[in-house]
């Protein structure tokens, strides 16, 4: 996405050379070096992303079962009709949507608080604090999913025992037997694990807020809350939006937690799991590819909304703007 700023510049420098005579030899060499450095990665990226996407789209137009290769037949958009008219798909879509919204919102608030702590904490503690906050993010999702699963499991879990003083929680509460409680655990584990990521991005944003602006506001008599609202937050909008975009894309593709904890039981199926179950579980490559393509379109949609409507400027978040 960010390479778009490099690509047009590089092509015009060669085709419109006379008109852009201002461009020095050095600039041209740098552009060429840029291509040499980024080129291989770009080619690899095309090979590992564009090709499978096109293949999935092609497969999605066929009735194709892996264990019946000879019965493969073109069926136009029939797979899409089946998927889009099926309540199972819309239920999964809704669950995915709810998980995305709730987790990103909660993570944003918690992440900001953590970023503030990391930014302002006493200097001696800063290193330890940052490391401690980052630990959950360093844990592999499957491992954290199992840890949360066993913590809440009715037979081996300790949560029911520890929190039995809370209303509604007792030894007989089976967290993974109901939609609400299952989704709660899935979302809590997701939030626990990825809040550090969002707080890191927000920390980068916080450190970009010029200190003199804050000082000026302080001199003018602004309270802490006013400074936060009027100075800090507007100045880190770009970083915040990038954090939200990245997390939303990630959260929308949630798989591991659901797969480990409920495997989609009790209405907790998410889109990725549905695609997995169809392509990998049922070996229905055609139908599964159709779901994957739809999932891909949803992700594109989120990107589009974020970049066009909320005007996320990825370049500025990198400190280029």
């Amino acid at each position: 996405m960010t390479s778009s700023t490099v690509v047009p510049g590089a092509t015009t420098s060669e085709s419109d050379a006379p008109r852009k005579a201002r461009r020095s030899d050095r600039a041209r060499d740098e552009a060429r070096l840029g291509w040499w450095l980024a080129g291989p990665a770009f080619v690899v990226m095309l090979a590992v992303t564009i090709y499978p996407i096109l293949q999935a789209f092609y497969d999605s137009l066929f009735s194709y079962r892996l264990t019946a290769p000879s019965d493969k037949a073109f069926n136009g958009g029939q797979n899409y009709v089946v998927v889009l008219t099926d309540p199972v798909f819309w239920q999964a879509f809704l669950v995915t949507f709810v998980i995305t919204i709730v987790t990103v919102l909660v993570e944003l608030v918690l992440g900001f608080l953590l970023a503030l702590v990391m930014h302002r904490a006493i200097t001696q503690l800063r290193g330890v604090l940052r490391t401690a906050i980052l630990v959950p993010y360093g844990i592999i999702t499957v491992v954290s999913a199992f840890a949360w699963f066993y913590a809440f499991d009715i037979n081996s879990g300790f949560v029911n025992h520890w929190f039995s003083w809370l209303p509604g929680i007792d030894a007989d509460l089976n967290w993974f037997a109901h939609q609400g409680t299952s989704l709660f655990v899935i979302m809590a584990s997701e939030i626990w694990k990825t809040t550090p990521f969002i707080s890191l991005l927000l920390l980068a944003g916080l450190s970009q807020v010029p200190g003199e602006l804050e000082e000026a506001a302080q001199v003018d008599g602004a309270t802490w809350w006013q400074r936060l609202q009027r100075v800090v937050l507007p100045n880190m909008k770009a970083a915040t939006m990038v954090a939200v975009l990245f997390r939303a894309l990630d959260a929308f593709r949630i798989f591991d937690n659901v797969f480990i904890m409920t495997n989609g039981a009790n209405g907790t199926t998410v889109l990725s799991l549905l695609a997995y179950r169809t392509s990998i579980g049922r070996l229905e490559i055609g139908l599964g590819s159709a779901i994957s393509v739809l999932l891909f379109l949803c992700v594109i949609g989120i990107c589009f909304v974020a970049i066009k409507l909320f005007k996320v400027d990825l370049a500025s978040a990198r400190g280029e703007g």
Partner: protein
Amino acid sequence: MRRRTRSIAATAALALALPLAACASESGPPTLTWYINPDNGGQVKIASLCTQAAKGEYRITTEVLPRDAASQREQLARRLAAKDSSIDIMSLDPPFIPELAEPGFLAPIPSDVAEAVTTDVVQGAIDGATWRDELVAIPFWANTQLLWYRKSVAEAAGLDPAKTPVTWQQIMDAAAEQDKFLGVQGAKAESLTVWVNALIESAGGHILENPEASADELTLGFESDAGRKAAEIMGTIGREGLGGPGLPTADENATMTVFQRDRGSFMVNWPFVWSATNAAVEDGTLDASIVDDIGWAMYPQVDEGTDARPPYGGINLGIGAFSTHVDLALEAAQCIVSPENQAFYFATNGNPPSSTKAYDDPQVVEAFPMADVIRESLEKAAPRPQTPYYNEVSTGVQETWHPPASVNPDTTPREATDFITAVLRGEALL
């Protein structure tokens, strides 16, 4: 600078190519790869025993498949669809054998081998290795579920399941009266299908009336007296809390844990629970008195006086159709399933033999005092529907018969029929 870039690229290409070249050369006897399901090390041991017995003719190495049967099938199906020649022998869960046999992923078993590996073998295991009247896999070990019970609970209820077969109604009443939990597998997983199938088969019905038909011609047998009786039993256990609060997520291991605790009463489960319970006692995590309180009997009946059809499971050996050593693989598979190896496997890993001879082995009788009951149960066991579309049928059952408390004899059989039919016709998602 450009030159340096190129030399780096060349070095990188060489570094990638060298290990590949090293793989190409192979010395010594041909290596057969056996894809095994995870166990307690028994299959690895048998592989080395057979390698020794082959006296240099072949060598068996093992590759471990994922933990649950569904993931094992996924991996094997995907590899075989890509014509993976590294699969020589594979441990297969019987319900998935038709799916792999139908597209020709399994090498045919020659008639002389077929005759040799079906002599003195329990009928359930032969049925589970057969597709379209031909043996397509080699019976290895055969599993079945028994009724495990706490003697104290059965006694208090006036039941003696070891002498007189009990019915589901009787154990449900006993659990309700004594405020105990029944051990049944209500999790949304393959174990749920195992239970549903056993209930329907015990009531004289079948999930599929014509399992060999094509996807859009399969006829489902839920909407029958047998289907309704099965739904009645399952729904009652769910609604009245007879399975405990853990029922909707209880798999075989969770069920065993509940059974071992204070409120354990009756449980249907595979024989691994016996070795697992004994191991827990040895480790000191379980009180020794529990073992003395455990009894075993045939699977509960649905209709009093009509023999139950217990679940059938286990592992059969398939030979990869794309293997470069099919003959050697057939030879190795016959070594693996020898009665001695099966007896060894049972005694050490708790997986019952399909060979009737292996049940007479002294080490089996010592480790599993219930070996006779297991053998009898295997003779009466009913396999799950044998169809290439088993995964759809099983997942469809799990979608419509879960959670157990929601199962209703008036609606569930019809819902299951409609749903699975639509899925098989490609009109609905699972």
